[in-house]
């Protein structure tokens, strides 16, 4: 799953992202998910629009707020829930959790807990495609907060001087946790990217059609050897920065700000466009919603029924090449 130009399919994917996150939030509340979860709710049009412009063999890197990117690139909800629940059947065998889900078969080089860290890795993957003569592209996702990370800005320069097939996808939701971009970022975000020699465009990130159109154009250019690009997607997160067992973080944004964001809801917007335009498949919107509901419940069931990793395996997977007595256990008797 990845490339698609079908609005109903985009709706299905956005609905999947939202229901996945709502269900994950419930499981955090119930204590079934142990670590923090950063909900993607409100930003669905960005991941879905970008990934619908990508082929299955293209690569993405993701962020702490990664579930949406992974689902949009084809990640399976059952193995994702299994990872969140710390199960051996999870994508990372329960070794990574929410902030680290990856599927290399789907070109998902992983969510990442360090802001900005995925971007240089996407450049390295893109370089590999380029020297091998493959027409694959790499898309690092990152937030507005990452725009102040040196490694990301260094990566802009690398992509430009090496003329790499990289599309930098900036999700500007206006905040880095509680800090507003207005107080944290000098100059303008897209102009900053332009300063590095990147063609830059600012796009309405609540409009999946606009996100897809801008992404498809940048991807097509990069694939044809036209080099990197920068896309800013203006979006909004509905929930607090993250949630974890034992409580929600406090949100310092006003009710008014949040209400304004919800009025631009990307899913309702697309649904309206489908209704007014090409129309739904037989069964209508409800049929898609029901299908997603069943899929999500089935995925949670799969995760719950999967075993947790055995304690004896705690030292596994750190190294590909191991040696006697290495890696060392924590004690000897």
């Amino acid at each position, binding site marked *: 799953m990845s490339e698609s130009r079908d609005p109903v399919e985009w709706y299905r994917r956005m609905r999947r992202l939202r229901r996945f996150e709502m269900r994950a939030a419930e499981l955090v509340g119930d204590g079934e998910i142990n670590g923090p979860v950063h909900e993607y709710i409100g930003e669905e049009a960005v991941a879905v629009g970008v990934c619908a412009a990508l082929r299955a063999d293209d*690569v993405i890197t993701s962020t702490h707020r990664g579930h949406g990117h992974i689902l949009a690139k084809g990640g399976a909800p059952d193995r994702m829930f299994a990872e969140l629940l710390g199960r051996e059947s999870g994508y990372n065998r329960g*070794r990574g959790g929410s902030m680290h889900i990856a599927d290399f078969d789907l070109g998902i080089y992983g969510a990442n807990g360090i802001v900005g860290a995925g971007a240089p890795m996407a450049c390295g993957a893109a370089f590999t495609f380029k020297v091998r003569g493959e027409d694959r592209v790499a898309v690092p996702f990152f937030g507005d907060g990452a725009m102040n990370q040196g490694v990301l800005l*260094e990566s802009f320069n690398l992509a430009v001087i090496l003329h790499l097939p990289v599309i930098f996808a900036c999700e500007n939701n206006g905040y880095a946790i509680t800090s507003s971009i207005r107080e944290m970022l000098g100059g303008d975000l897209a102009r900053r990217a332009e300063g590095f020699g990147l063609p830059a465009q600012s796009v309405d990130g609540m409009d999946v059609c606009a996100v897809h159109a801008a992404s498809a154009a940048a991807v097509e250019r990069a694939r044809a050897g036209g080099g990197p690009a920068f896309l800013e997607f203006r979006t909004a997160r509905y929930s607090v920065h993250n949630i974890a067992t034992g409580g929600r973080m406090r949100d310092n944004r006003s009710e008014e700000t949040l209400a304004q964001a919800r009025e631009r809801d990307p899913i309702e917007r697309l649904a309206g466009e489908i209704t007014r335009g090409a129309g739904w498949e037989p069964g209508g919107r409800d049929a898609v919603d029901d299908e997603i509901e069943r899929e999500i419940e089935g995925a949670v069931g799969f995760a719950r029924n999967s075993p947790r990793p055995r304690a004896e395996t705690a030292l596994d997977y750190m190294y590909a090449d191991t040696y006697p*007595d290495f890696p060392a256990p924590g004690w*000897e008797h």
Partner: protein
Amino acid sequence: MRELTYVQALNEALRQAMTEDDSVFMIGENIRGGVRAETAGLDDAFGPERVLDMPISEAAFTGFANGAALAGMRPVVEFQVASLMFPAFDQIVNQAAKLPLMLGGQAHIPVTFLLMGAGAGGGRAGQHSDNPYTFLIHAGIKTVVPSTPADAKGLMLAAIFEDDPVALVVNSNLLGRTGDVPAGGERARLAKGAVRRAGKDVTVCAVGHLVPAALEAAGRLAEDGIEVEVWDPRSLLPFDKEGLAASVAKTGRLVIADDSARTCGFAAEVAGLVAERCFDSLRGPIKRVTRADVTVPYSTPIEQAMLPAADELEAAVRTLAA
């Protein structure tokens, strides 16, 4: 076998690895144009797509190498000076070292970190005199510190073809050292130490450029009838625990020579290991000869005063052998 210098051996290893496997490529600052001896001639031989000059962006180019490694390449990342790995530490520690386990075995990161310009003694002052292997070991990065030209080649080849990140720390004081180097592409084995001089009285476990210092001290001590066994770990992580235990079982005495910080340093780890495993063999306290726990100062008398060398090693051995 022919004689090569240490840096020629590094160069030969890079050349052979790049010939053998076209997924091997090299990035670093100012590595093209043949100005640096370890990369001399490589860009002529392999072209600009396999020998890439990088902007002064250690964090990004290290991450770039990690990403290329995830995509199936075997990058060699050169840090022009060992302490220049610090600007890239997130990509080394949080990414290269940690991702494989967190990915649950889905992917490996066969990257080599080549740390040139390690060590003090050249009036380079605090920011250009580190021997930062302990930081790497602590992060779980496999780390090798070759002391001879043959090992410079064999361990470089091993590092490049290992499927995990490996750091190779090159001390500036060793670059001109000469020795026999095999012409073939044999890879050294990690976790395998070497006895550089056999002896029955005291084991000196010496790291990197302190191996020649230990051999010098051993020569002097032999004149007084003290027979030192110089044992070179070669690979600090993974470490040849059995090899060192065998030497200590024979001598019953251990001095550890490690030119890095004393507290929580590599010597402390070796001492802990031997105390735990070889207590019954020991006939005296374990001695550590390390740097003082301060930043390396510039002026020669104070720079030399805080660094371990043959004299300090000799004195440590004498206190144990007395």
